[in-house]
């Protein structure tokens, strides 16, 4: 028995089900190419630092990662706000804001993880320890956990509309919370520090290193955008699948009742 597809379900061509389109293929190629050039620049062309030596190369990953993460979480906050304003339950309009919020948050979490990991490695070499209780690091950990929680909230079994709205509220509240956390921890550690204030401070970056850093930021942005677009589409597919499962169950129930 062949089902007539629901009007909302778009025609599924092979490329659609694999979430790729000509545009994203171009983006993928650009990202891949840019990444290779980045590796060249970061690992070979750019100079080692006078003080830190080759450890400075870690920053070409560490700094752009957190920039991408901040951008992603900012996007999550904006789209969450738009969702709350624009979502209409009856017509399911505005769902795309929710999807983008989720995709952006997940990408943000991945890059926050990369930030923490690369930062810890860098810290081990430069400070001698994996961890410092300064504002940036502590806030970043809490940021990571906050959005892990957000992603967990998004996965809860609940009515999609309810879940989406709660996730949106949480995203907005979290966005307010992060500066508060940063301020609190910063104040705490500033009060605590008696001696060297250079702990946790990154060096001034100039010349070739600066441009490598900027280029890295660009590359990371390409990659993150590609990831976000595809993640968004997969979320869309997941919703379609869930909707279809629901229809299936309703049909079964109806046919049971009619027996």
């Amino acid at each position, binding site marked *: *028995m*062949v*089902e007539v597809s629901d009007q909302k*379900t778009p025609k*599924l061509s092979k490329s*659609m*089900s*694999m*979430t*790729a389109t000509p545009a994203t293929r171009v983006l993928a190629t650009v990202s891949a190419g840019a990444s290779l050039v980045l*590796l060249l620049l*970061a*690992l070979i062309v750019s100079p080692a630092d006078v003080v*830190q*030596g*080759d*450890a400075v*190369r*870690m920053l070409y*990953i560490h700094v752009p*990662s957190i920039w991408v993460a901040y951008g992603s979480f900012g996007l999550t906050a904006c789209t969450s706000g738009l969702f709350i304003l624009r979502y209409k339950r009856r017509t399911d309009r505005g769902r795309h804001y929710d999807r983008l919020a989720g995709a952006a948050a997940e990408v943000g979490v*991945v890059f926050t*993880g*990369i930030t923490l*990991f*690369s930062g810890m*490695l*860098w810290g*081990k*070499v430069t400070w001698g320890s994996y961890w410092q209780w300064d504002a940036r690091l502590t806030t970043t950990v809490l940021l990571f956990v906050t959005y892990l929680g957000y992603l967990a909230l998004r996965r809860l079994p609940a009515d999609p509309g309810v879940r989406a709205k709660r996730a949106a509220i949480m995203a907005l509240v979290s966005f307010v919370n992060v500066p508060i956390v940063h301020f609190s921890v910063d104040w705490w550690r500033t009060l605590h520090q008696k001696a060297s204030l250079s702990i946790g401070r990154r060096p001034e970056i100039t010349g070739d290193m600066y441009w490598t850093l900027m280029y890295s930021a660009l590359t990371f942005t390409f*990659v993150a955008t*590609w*990831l976000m677009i*595809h*993640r968004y*589409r*997969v979320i869309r*597919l*997941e919703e*379609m*699948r869930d909707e*279809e*499962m629901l*229809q*299936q169950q309703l*049909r079964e129930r109806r046919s049971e009742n009619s027996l």
Partner: protein
Amino acid sequence: MTNIGTIVVGYSVTIFSVGFYAAWIVRRGVLIGKEIGIGSQTSPTDETD
């Protein structure tokens, strides 16, 4: 940990993580696409991702 060693580990893990995530997304898209593409007579698969 040596400087060079740190860089090797750091870059490798980063590249692997991003690559793995990208592959996961694409694979998930393909799998779910197949699920829907097949249509409604199949019972919902118990796919854990």
